[in-house]
């Protein structure tokens, strides 16, 4: 277990270094920054712009700047946002929590639909229900978030549902519902054909008890992997959902940072997103570990 955590921490640090370095050099090589648009303003002299740039340290070489950025990042100081004029770390964290709660609700919605439909499929094995599940998977997988969030906006406009939070959560959850449902339904179906299910039946357990106590446990691991992987997709999806519906969060913050060429803010976004993705994957692996005794046995060997 200790070995696992050390490996994960090294992976996390490497991921942070790669993304921060790639983002920093790409954004610095751009040849344009928050002051570029000032150059078109005839009332601002070139010397004044240079002075401004120097005050933010933009006149130093890239490697030096990355070094000092890294040094202060290690102390959780990500500098100040050009656009908001507040510390990046603070801003990014507060917006991240807002999106994290949204993503949590989206995962909850997706799990609720996936688990209950898969349970009904395993319990009743009805062909109609199975076709219905296939239909749901197809429709949910092919409705893009940009489409669903615009429709959510239309619903908001017409006032049918007025909760911005739940509409955003539903919009965010849509493709995830299809992914989780397809995966969980399939693995539950496979689990129902295993020997231990036959043994449980022979013991005289009711079908519901078999599914809930035995098959679920076997089916849950692939779904957990998917959950870890989909965290990044949820953060990416928040870009469009939050911008369309107009809810502050990490996605809408990214768009504002891009429109205003706020490079420190973008660096902050990249860092928190990498951290979140890493944490999500680690959490999923830990949960799998807790759930599956075979993995524990492997570790013991």
């Amino acid at each position, binding site marked *: 277990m200790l070995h696992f955590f050390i490996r994960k921490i090294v992976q996390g640090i*490497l*991921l942070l270094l*790669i*993304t921060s370095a790639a*983002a920093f050099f*790409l*954004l610095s*090589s*751009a040849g*344009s920054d928050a002051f570029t648009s000032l150059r078109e303003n005839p009332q601002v002299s070139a010397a004044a712009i240079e002075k401004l740039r120097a005050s933010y340290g933009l006149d130093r070489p890239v490697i030096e700047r990355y070094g000092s950025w890294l040094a202060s990042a290690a102390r959780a100081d990500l500098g100040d946002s050009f656009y908001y004029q507040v510390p990046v770390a603070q801003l990014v964290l507060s917006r991240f929590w807002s999106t994290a709660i949204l993503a949590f609700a989206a995962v909850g919605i997706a799990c609720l639909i996936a688990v209950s439909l898969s349970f009904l499929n395993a319990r009743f094995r009805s*062909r109609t229900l*199975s*076709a219905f599940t*296939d239909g749901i998977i*197809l429709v949910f*997988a*092919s*409705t*893009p*978030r*940009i*489409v669903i969030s*615009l*429709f959510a*906006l*239309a619903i908001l*406009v*017409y006032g049918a549902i007025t909760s911005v939070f739940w509409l955003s959560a539903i919009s965010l959850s849509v493709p995830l519902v299809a992914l989780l449902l397809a995966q969980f339904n399939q693995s539950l179906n496979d689990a129902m054909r295993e020997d231990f299910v036959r043994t449980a039946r022979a013991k005289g357990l009711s079908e519901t008890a078999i599914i809930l106590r035995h098959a679920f446990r076997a089916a849950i691991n692939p779904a957990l992997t998917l959950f870890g*992987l989909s965290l*990044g*997709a*949820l*953060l*990416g*999806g928040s*870009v*469009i959902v939050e*911008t*369309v519906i107009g809810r502050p969060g990490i*996605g809408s913050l*990214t*768009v504002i*940072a*891009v*429109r205003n*060429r706020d*490079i420190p803010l*973008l660096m902050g*976004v*990249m860092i928190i*997103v*990498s951290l979140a*993705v*890493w944490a999500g*994957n680690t959490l999923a692996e830990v949960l799998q570990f807790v759930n599956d005794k075979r993995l524990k046995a492997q570790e013991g060997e």
Partner: protein
Amino acid sequence: MSDIGAKKRLSIAAKAGLFLLAGFVFIAIFADFLAPYDHTSQSRSLPNAPISAISFSDENGSFSLIPRVFEPKMTDALRQSYTHDPSRSAKVELFAKGYGYHLFGIIPLDRHLLGTDSDEIGLHLLGTDALGRDRLSRLLIAIRFSLIVCTIGAAFASLVGIALGLVGGYAGKIVDTVISGVADAVISLPSMIVILAARVAFPLELPPMTAALLLVGLFTFTGWAEMTRLTRGLVKRTRTLDYITAARISGVSSGRILVRHILPNIARPLLTQATLILPAFLLAEATLSFLGVGVQEPEPSLGNMLAAANDLTQLREHAFVLLSPAIVIALFVLAVRLTNTGLSSNEDREIT
């Protein structure tokens, strides 16, 4: 038994998907012919006009097979609401004369599928946008534009991804570790945020063609990794097979083994993956253009047309026409998915 039913259903799904895709390709090829009007020509007197009122009756009110369109009349300039004038109408014509264009880029033509016999009264099947441009024409051109950009992007991303996957999977050791490490990092990060961050490295306002090229570059930048992971796994599985060992012993060069012996055997799953990249790129293009950092006016794209739907007062008045690009996007994604599930289930049948 239910499996047979499932397969039959899926093959119908594949047919439906292919039919839809064929429709998209048809639109992409004949966009200019299908579009009634020039997508750039504005009519400032008719902003946000509704869908043209059509009636199947002639001037005397008796039934006629040739439909007529009525001229929209603005009743409130502030709210941009319209009624139509029953006295002023024009006949709808097939193969009407309109703006000149080049079919397939070479054949000069000026005929369009639909039009009217009058220059003043237009046929606007999806109404007009805020600058009075025919929305249907813009939508058709946007479909063509988005499809071309996304197909080129998917092709580039697939090529780069396959090449890196082949090299990594076959070379092994340090090359493989580096390639698969970077690929895993790229896959785990949300591609939309990465694309947006990379977008800042370039000027925000770009002419449409430069923007399209940039989009292809950005799609390749994030899209290669998934392909590399797949290719690498397949190569690793294939390279230990006997016929590869035989080829190596008989002195065939590594490059030739990769291209002639391994690639053809793993082509099918790679093709499936490549088709799945297509809708992802269409969505990325739509998202970027929607946010105003992709393809910009006057060139229509599905994304920048959708941006008009982000206006609450407009959305309340004209929800359907404003969301029509969204419906097109959903249909395209659906078409690719239907085809894909249908075809991959056929593959399973061949194996069993």
